[in-house]
């Protein structure tokens, strides 16, 4: 019957993230068991499966409720935006409340559950249902006697559902050692999903796990999920592999000289940037620069603030000359401020996902990351960040995270141990020299680009962050007044050199002039001598001739 070599036919749940985990939905035409403790969201998940089926996939459904009556159920799911009344009126959904009774029913002799079959069959046929939910069929066990018959009948029911070809969800309460109290997992073996609601460090989180999915691959991890006004969203698995595209496009950091340090062009688009540093080193300021630069380019920036309110950030940034207000008004910049303790990590992450999906930013800022670390949940924080980073990379969104490091500890150790996820890591530190505290910035790493190895001093001025030139002294980079002294010294040195040059030029000129004068004098002397000599020579020649003549005459 089943097509060979093809994936099992699946029925999409339409629930965010669940279809990804299950590789396309629940097994079509088979029952799926969803179990978990009280209040873990079984009924809701089942209901959403039906409602989405009816509204999105044109598959009508039957909800057979054993615990809540139709009125309560309708009211409960209305808060999630499901209008059951309307769906029932349009014959998309049948809600049948099975009231088993308050006390055990009197039995006399053999019976079977044909009545239930008939009811269910009638409901299915009346609207041509493709989906069925039985919530929670285990209620039968507490009210009806004779477990043997019940078990046999349930077995028959699940077989019958398969024959009917409906995709069914059967919910079950978690048992002591078993997945369900009555061991329903023995009967439903095609797909079993376990929901869990746990509290750690006073923060609650919901998890979902596909325990078993016969004939299909599936994610086996525990996936956090969230119930909010849009129903259930399971945390998207994001990339199970590392297959994100890597952009070669570069985007400026918002600080020109920082761009210069990063190979002259800034961060890669879609990369993850970490700015870590001790308190008050200017992490948020750098983040604000980046956000502002993005808005200037006409891109959208989403700023998740976990320690300061948006107004506080805007006020503080205004003091260093970054005005974020106009961008917020233009709708290019959005703040999402919540307390880290407001919800569990998953809730935060899912909320972030939602905000990102809704706002579609090109730049996301999380300030700061490590406020999530409460107690000893570092591993969870890391996995959460990994998911976030993966998600951002998939969407080619540049993520900028700040992280507060405690002074005294190793600066290279980011608290949440996410260094391996980070492409560009800027480290801010205070440098204490000469009774001063100055800010220094260096690039710890920046994958895939040439970057400066210098520690640069940076100032928070009234026109933003300013990186200064490097002054290397005997004990490293000079900052603050030491740098100023060095600057002054160089200035004085320059002046001295200038004066010296001038002096030498004058000297040279003087020498040249002296030389020229000497040359003139010599020439004059020479000329005088020449004249004298020539006249002597002239006289002598005349005397010689006379002498010759005299000799000749005399001889």
């Amino acid at each position: 019957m089943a097509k060979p070599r093809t994936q099992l036919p699946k029925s999409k749940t339409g629930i965010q993230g669940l279809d990804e985990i299950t590789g396309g939905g629940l097994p079509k035409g088979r029952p799926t068991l969803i179990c978990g403790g009280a209040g873990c969201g079984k009924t809701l998940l089942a209901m959403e499966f039906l409602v989405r089926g009816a509204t999105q996939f044109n598959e009508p459904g039957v909800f057979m409720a054993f615990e809540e009556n139709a009125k309560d159920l309708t009211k409960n799911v209305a808060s999630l935006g499901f209008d059951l009344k309307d769906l029932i009126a349009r014959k998309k959904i049948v809600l049948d409340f099975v009231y088993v009774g308050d006390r055990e029913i009197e039995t006399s002799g053999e019976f079977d559950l044909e009545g239930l079959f008939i009811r269910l069959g009638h409901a299915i046929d009346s609207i041509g249902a493709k989906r069925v939910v039985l919530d929670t069929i285990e209620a039968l066990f507490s009210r009806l006697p004779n477990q043997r018959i019940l078990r046999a009948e349930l077995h028959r029911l699940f077989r019958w559902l398969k024959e009917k070809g409906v995709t069914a969800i059967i919910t079950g309460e978690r048992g002591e050692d078993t997945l369900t109290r009555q061991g329903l997992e023995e009967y439903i073996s095609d797909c079993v999903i376990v929901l869990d609601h746990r509290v750690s460090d006073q923060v609650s989180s919901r998890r979902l796990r596909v325990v078993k999915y016969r004939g299909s691959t599936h994610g086996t991890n525990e996936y956090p999920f969230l119930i909010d006004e849009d129903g259930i969203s399971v945390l998207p698995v994001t990339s199970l592999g590392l297959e994100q595209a890597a952009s070669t496009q570069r985007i400026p950091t918002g600080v020109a000289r920082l761009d210069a340090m990063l190979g002259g062009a800034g961060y890669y688009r879609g990369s993850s940037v970490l700015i870590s540093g001790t308190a008050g080193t200017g992490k948020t300021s750098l983040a604000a620069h980046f956000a502002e630069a993005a808005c200037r380019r006409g891109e959208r920036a989403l700023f998740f603030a976990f320690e300061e309110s948006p107004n506080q950030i805007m006020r503080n940034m205004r003091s260093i000359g970054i005005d974020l207000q106009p961008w917020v008004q233009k709708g290019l910049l959005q703040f999402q401020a919540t307390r880290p303790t407001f919800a569990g990590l998953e809730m935060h992450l899912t909320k972030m996902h939602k905000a990102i999906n809704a706002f579609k930013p090109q730049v996301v800022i999380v300030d700061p990351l490590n406020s999530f670390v409460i107690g000893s949940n570092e591993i969870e924080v890391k996995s959460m960040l990994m998911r976030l980073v993966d998600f951002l990379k998939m969407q080619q969104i540049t993520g900028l995270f700040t992280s507060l490091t405690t002074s005294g500890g190793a600066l290279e150790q980011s608290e949440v141990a996410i260094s391996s996820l980070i492409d560009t890591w800027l480290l801010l530190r205070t440098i204490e020299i000469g009774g001063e505290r100055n800010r220094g910035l260096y690039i710890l790493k920046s994958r895939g680009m040439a970057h400066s190895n210098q520690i640069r001093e940076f100032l928070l001025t009234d026109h933003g962050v300013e990186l200064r030139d490097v002054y290397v002294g005997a004990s490293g980079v000079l900052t603050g007044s030491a740098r100023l002294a060095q600057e002054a010294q160089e200035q004085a040195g320059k002046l001295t050199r200038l004066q010296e040059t001038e002096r030498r030029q004058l000297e040279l000129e003087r020498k040249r002039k002296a030389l020229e004068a000497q040359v003139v004098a010599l020439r004059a002397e020479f000329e005088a001598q020449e004249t004298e000599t020539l006249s002597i020579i002239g006289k002598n020649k005349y005397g010689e001739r006379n002498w010759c003549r005299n000799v000749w005459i005399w001889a």
Partner: protein
Amino acid sequence: MKTNPTKPVTPVPEGGAREKKLDTYVLRLYVAGQTPKSMTAFDNLKKICEEYLEGRYQIQVVDLLKNPQLASGDQILAIPTLVRKLPLPIRKIIGDLSNTERVLIGLDLVPQK
């Protein structure tokens, strides 16, 4: 095979039932087709009624295969189910009624004569 011996399926007006000195029992037996179990149940029920409720009972048989929509009204799950519609309160007994004692307890007939 099965016929309805005591004129069935029309509900008795409730007020009328209470006026009598001894309550008239209106019993409704839900079955799904003529299975051996439903036949046994019907036979057992008739026997019990004849013995304990002579002359003051009505049995209505509802076949859910013919009228599936009637199942939800009395919240029927198990088959066969006997519902005591009158006298109030409504009581239910499931099974083929082979255990007479349980049926009598179920119908609240034990403390009376």
